[in-house]
């Protein structure tokens, strides 16, 4: 892993963030009613850093990623409040044309399932060429040469032959590398990776993560990693934002958050994970299941599952605050002071 990835930008860095999401609210219409997939979400992504948004299925992390890129389902999804500031420009207000210019060229995305991201009937080389030529005026032959270089960059053996392959001729790990190659083709400043290795076997997952880390280091890019896997976050991200039921509940440097989680949900998740490096046996567990986002609980959304919850937790949604006040971690919990005590 490169030094650029490891170092990261401190949370209170003086430089302006590359991407700044402010009080974002995203609504999605579902069969059961309107769901607030992101509810007052704020975070900054600085240059040269990897920020992980981690949460369980249905917590809204994917919709958050799609909101940033203006890729919400057209009829059923919309941003109803907040800003997505990319180098000062509010993408939440941008026209579809402007968003199309930005997508791929400045902010690129890698999805979980490479098969759905690739055209099944076109050779992977042609798809990369097309992607380059949609944004830049370059001759086809030159774009083709860049495609070969890109496949080489992501560690695909015999790239000059592989450009002629169809997606189905490649393994899952290879396809995900092709997706990475396409994503970095135009040298974007921000790479949004939504569960990039979840569909892969564990040995292949390790290879793809190494590739992603190496490339983002080489290209001086920032990564917004969307994942459910705390293990992947620990090995890869500089900062982490924990999402629960549409809201961020804790945010800070990875080492800090893992060493001493301040939110009961983060703390509960970290101890309930079966690990390969602890004493095997009974697992701690979080009772219950995440709330229904059509009608979430009024106060803290984690309160119904939380052993520390009191009346205030059930009534008043907690604000994000620094805890401890001189630290680098923000947490949305009325009882953060008690987490991990006794």
């Amino acid at each position, binding site marked *: *892993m490169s030094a650029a990835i490891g170092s990261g930008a401190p949370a209170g860095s003086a430089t302006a963030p590359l991407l700044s999401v402010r009080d974002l609210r995203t609504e999605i219409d579902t069969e059961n009613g309107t769901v607030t997939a992101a509810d007052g979400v704020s975070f900054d992504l600085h240059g040269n850093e990897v920020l992980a948004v981690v949460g369980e299925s249905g917590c809204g992390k994917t919709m958050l990623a799609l909101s940033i890129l203006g890729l919400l389902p057209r009829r059923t999804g919309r941003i109803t409040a907040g800003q997505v500031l990319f180098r000062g420009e509010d993408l939440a207000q941008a026209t579809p044309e402007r968003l199309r210019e930005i997508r791929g060229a400045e902010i690129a995305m890698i999805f979980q399932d490479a098969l759905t991201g690739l055209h099944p009937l076109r050779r992977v080389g042609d798809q990369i060429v097309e992607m380059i030529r949609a944004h830049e005026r370059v001759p086809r032959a030159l774009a083709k040469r860049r495609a070969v270089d890109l496949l080489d960059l992501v560690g695909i053996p015999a790239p000059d032959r592989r450009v002629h392959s169809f997606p189905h001729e490649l393994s899952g790990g290879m396809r995900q590398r092709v997706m990475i190659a396409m994503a970095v083709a135009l040298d974007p400043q921000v790479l949004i990776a939504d569960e990039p290795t979840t569909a892969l076997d564990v040995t292949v997952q*390790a290879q793809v993560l190494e590739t992603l880390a190496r490339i983002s280091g080489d290209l001086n890019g920032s990564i917004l990693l969307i994942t459910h896997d705390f293990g992947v976050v620990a090995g890869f991200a500089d900062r982490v934002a924990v999402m629960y039921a549409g809201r961020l509940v804790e945010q800070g440097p990875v080492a800090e958050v893992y060493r001493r989680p301040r939110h009961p949900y983060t703390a509960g998740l970290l101890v309930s994970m*079966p690990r390969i490096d602890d004493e095997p046996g*009974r697992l701690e567990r979080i009772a219950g299941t995440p709330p229904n986002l059509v009608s979430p609980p009024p106060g803290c959304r984690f309160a119904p599952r939380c052993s520390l919850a009191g009346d205030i937790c059930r009534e008043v949604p907690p604000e994000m605050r620094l805890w401890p006040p001189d630290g680098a971690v923000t947490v949305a919990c009325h009882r953060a002071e008690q987490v991990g005590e006794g």
Partner: protein
Amino acid sequence: MAGPPFPQHAAAYGDPGEGRNPGSVPTSLLAVEGLAKHFSTRRATLKAVDGVSFTLEEGRSLGLVGESGCGKSTTARLILRLLKPTAGSVRFRGRELTALSQAEMRRVRSQLGIVFQDPYASLNPRMTLRNIVAEGLRVWHPEADLDRRVAELLELVGLPARFGRRYPHELSGGQRQRVAIARALAPGPSLLICDEPVSALDVSVQAQILNLLADLQYELRLTILFISHDLAVVRHVCERVAVMHLGRIVEIGTRAQVYDNPRHPYTAALLSAVPVPDPARRHDGRRVQLAGEIPSPLDPPSGCTFRTRCRHAAERCAVEDPELALRGVDHPVACHFAADLPLVPQP
């Protein structure tokens, strides 16, 4: 979040007793010997399972781990006779299952429970939970007593009896998996086969189901064959572990033997690739990078099928197929150099 504290069952997680002879067939609940399943197409033969042997003692748990396509789920289906083996034997309580007729097999199946990965696909959406669970009971249980028994089973898996009136779509993923477990336990099986039972569940719910399985194993003296791609999960559930690669077991032993002292390079690589939720471990250099891709099972390498990705591979590996054997270490390994390889000790 309260609830009665769970008893600590030493037997459910403890060490399975040292020096257990892997060949002690007479006491085994399940003994699998040379099990194989080959699928033939016009062009090639896929050896999905290719000579798998292991034994499982009553009341114990064995984990079958490996990456996708290694044959672990096919092995489960062969044991249950949901697939017909190409070769080999499956003895359950000493009785050969591969030779049984369909009718005989149906009777034996009440002894073999199975829980599948996807609780969304494995429960009939048009049936109430009561009927889903009762289905497994009906053949074996007097009709008049069904409701009481269903209520008992639901409570056993941590669901209120009134849930019997509900339909699967009203439940969360974790609750559905509890129903699937209740259904599997309904006929009173002694062997429970779990095929990736928590892979579709969120982390916070996974732990609930894994703890439930541990409790059930203890309370009902269940024998568990646990199939998973997740090494961390298997480590928490199983006393013994078998690692599969391209249709074969490459290493088998107690949890401590396999996880603390892996002797097959593939096991070592798998273990090192598991992401550890500890940022301090990021640069500790434990990761064994595997070169290349999992070979195609339609065209496996000669000799040892792992050699193309193995950094310790020698000439001998290309010509001589290593059998699963003791090879001077304390548990069976299918590697010519099991005793000598400097594999990184795992945490």
